[in-house]
């Protein structure tokens, strides 16, 4: 998009009147980082292409390696229904379509959502360290889910499983507590919220430990795997429900992208730039609670994705939330797909929780960023 000066803008006529030479628009505003519509599409489409490559790459890996030509044939067959290759009872096709595909999709959705919630919370709290886990939403959701799991509330009511509803309730509960604590003083202090999150985390963790210690041993084992973060065994039918929850949450985050940009300038400045700060904050917090609740109920607590991916994307792509949010979603999704592939193939045929990988990879990267890129991270 090439801006021109012959637009009859008041500022332009002003510059002429004050005798300033009306120089052509120079590179200042069309720099490599400044966001334009075409640049947005370029980034998003490249991101989608890379995502597809990662998906196909991860599908082939596992206890039984599947050649890529076969993967593409099976997918085409499933999508288009050409049925030239095989009947549906083919074991390779079942492994691919009923085991690996849903699991990979779950990894993508969980990773992408965690990264986008991280972006939103960091902007809202103006703190690069904010993360659904750090400020206690994840543990709130986990406590809700743990209660459902251990006391058998986790049965389905109709087609809606009680688990995500309990997790959402837990996430919302922790957010409301923090909102109340922070609103006790005038306005809404970022630091109060962060500290409250840390303390809430400790309280919720204590409750979860208490629950696991009084629970029946056979249920505790499943609890432990889940608390470390796991992506095992999703069904296509339950994934549909997750997509619904995430769709609503991500839509709300997405439309507030520009408001989040302005909120990084501080709440008072954002208000002076026309943002209805309280309304935006409530919507974004609600959406974050919904996303975190849904994600935690499906995959347990997977840390570091919401912390590390936003930083990386901000440094490489843009800090502008219109691009940052969707890119963080794609990159976070890719990151968790790769991490889960490692988790299920590294010690094949046994596997370990994906949360272990994200912490082992994400932790050092975060520390490295912290020590080398302090200015960009805003830590200085």
């Amino acid at each position, binding site marked *: 998009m090439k801006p021109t000066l012959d637009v009859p803008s008041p*500022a332009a006529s002003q510059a002429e009147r004050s005798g300033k030479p009306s120089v052509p628009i120079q590179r200042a505003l069309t720099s490599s*980082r400044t*966001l334009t519509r075409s640049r947005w599409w370029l980034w998003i489409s490249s991101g989608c292409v890379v995502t597809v490559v990662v998906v196909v790459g991860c599908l082939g890996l596992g206890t039984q390696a599947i050649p890529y030509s076969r993967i593409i044939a099976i997918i085409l067959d499933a999508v288009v229904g050409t049925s030239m290759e095989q009947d549906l009872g083919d074991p390779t096709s079942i492994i691919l379509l009923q085991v690996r595909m849903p699991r990979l999709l779950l990894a993508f959705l969980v990773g992408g959502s965690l990264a986008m919630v991280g972006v939103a919370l960091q902007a809202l709290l103006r703190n690069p360290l904010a993360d659904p886990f750090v400020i206690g939403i994840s543990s709130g959701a986990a406590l809700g889910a743990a209660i459902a799991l251990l006391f058998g509330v986790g049965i389905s009511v109709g087609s809606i499983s009680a688990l995500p509803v309990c997790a959402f309730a837990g996430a919302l509960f922790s957010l409301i507590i923090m909102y109340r604590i922070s609103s006790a003083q005038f306005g809404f202090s970022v630091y109060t919220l962060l500290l409250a999150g840390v303390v809430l985390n400790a309280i919720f963790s204590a409750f979860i430990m208490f629950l696991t210690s009084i629970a029946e041993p056979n249920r505790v084992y499943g609890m432990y795997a889940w608390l470390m973060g796991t992506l095992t065994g999703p069904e296509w039918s339950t994934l549909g429900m997750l997509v619904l929850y995430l769709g609503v949450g991500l839509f709300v985050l997405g439309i507030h992208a520009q408001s989040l940009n302005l909120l990084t300038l501080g709440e008072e400045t954002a*208000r002076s730039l*026309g943002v209805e700060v309280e309304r935006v904050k409530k919507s974004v917090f609600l959406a974050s609670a919904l996303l975190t609740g849904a994600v935690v109920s499906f995959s347990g607590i997977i840390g570091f994705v919401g912390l590390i991916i936003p930083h990386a994307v901000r440094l490489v792509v843009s800090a*502008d939330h219109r691009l940052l949010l969707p890119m963080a979603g794609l990159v976070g999704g890719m990151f968790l797909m790769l991490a889960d592939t490692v988790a299920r193939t590294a010690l094949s045929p046994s596997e370990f929780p994906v949360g272990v990988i994200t912490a082992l990879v994400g932790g050092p990267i975060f520390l490295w960023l912290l020590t080398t890129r302090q200015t960009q991270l805003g830590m200085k």
Partner: protein
Amino acid sequence: MMNDQPHFNVAYSLENVSFSYGRRNRAVSEAVLNDLSCLILSGRVLGILGPNGSGKSTLLKLLARVFEPQQGKIELLGDSLSSLSQLEVAKRVALVPQETVQVFPFTISEMVMMGRSPHHQGWGGWHWEDSQDWAIAQNAMEELDVAHLGDRLVTEVSGGERQRAVIARALVQEPQVLLLDEPTAFLDLHHQLDIARIIKRLNRDRGLTVVLVSHDLNLASQYCDHVLLLNHGRLAAMGSPQKVLNPEIIEAVYGCSVLVDQHPQSGLPRVSLPV
């Protein structure tokens, strides 16, 4: 002058405005602003002066509707401020905060462009900038001499450059009123003069109404048409610098005696501290 709006002689009119932070039912003694009434004329530069904690910045934030007064009424260009939407206020009034802290790697041009936001309405504020937005931003950045910094990160530039960029962002809002909170507070002598001259020029060339909060009595004397002196949230004096900046009033408000003579160039009051 550059707006289709009819010309108003009065930019703001304040009637019995009281404000306090915290809960609504606090005692009146804690009020930051107390029963304040005044008129702010359009097209002029008004300096808000007063000791620490006298409510200067709070008053500025009420004018920008960052906060709303618990009591009293503020009118902006003939409309009740509380009846306008946040977006409508943002199209008329731009606020330059005392300090701009940015923790994320936004560039200067990205930050300046955020000033166009009030002029776009979409779902939740989502929009794309068009070529007119780019032209307006480019002009403002050239006027404030920050166009060459467009690519730099907000966190990388000096305090003076950042302050100029924030003023450019305010201009990009195309406001009728420019509010500045201690615009020269963290700047050295050279940049103080720079910012003061820019403010005066914007007032003269664009017809902007300027309201600035300052600790610097001499800066206010030289560059403001009127000054408003606050003391403990109450209006102590308001008028031309010659009228307000006299030793008796200053001593009564600040609690220390000062010497006031004339500036050798402008003949306006010059305030000096005694030995």
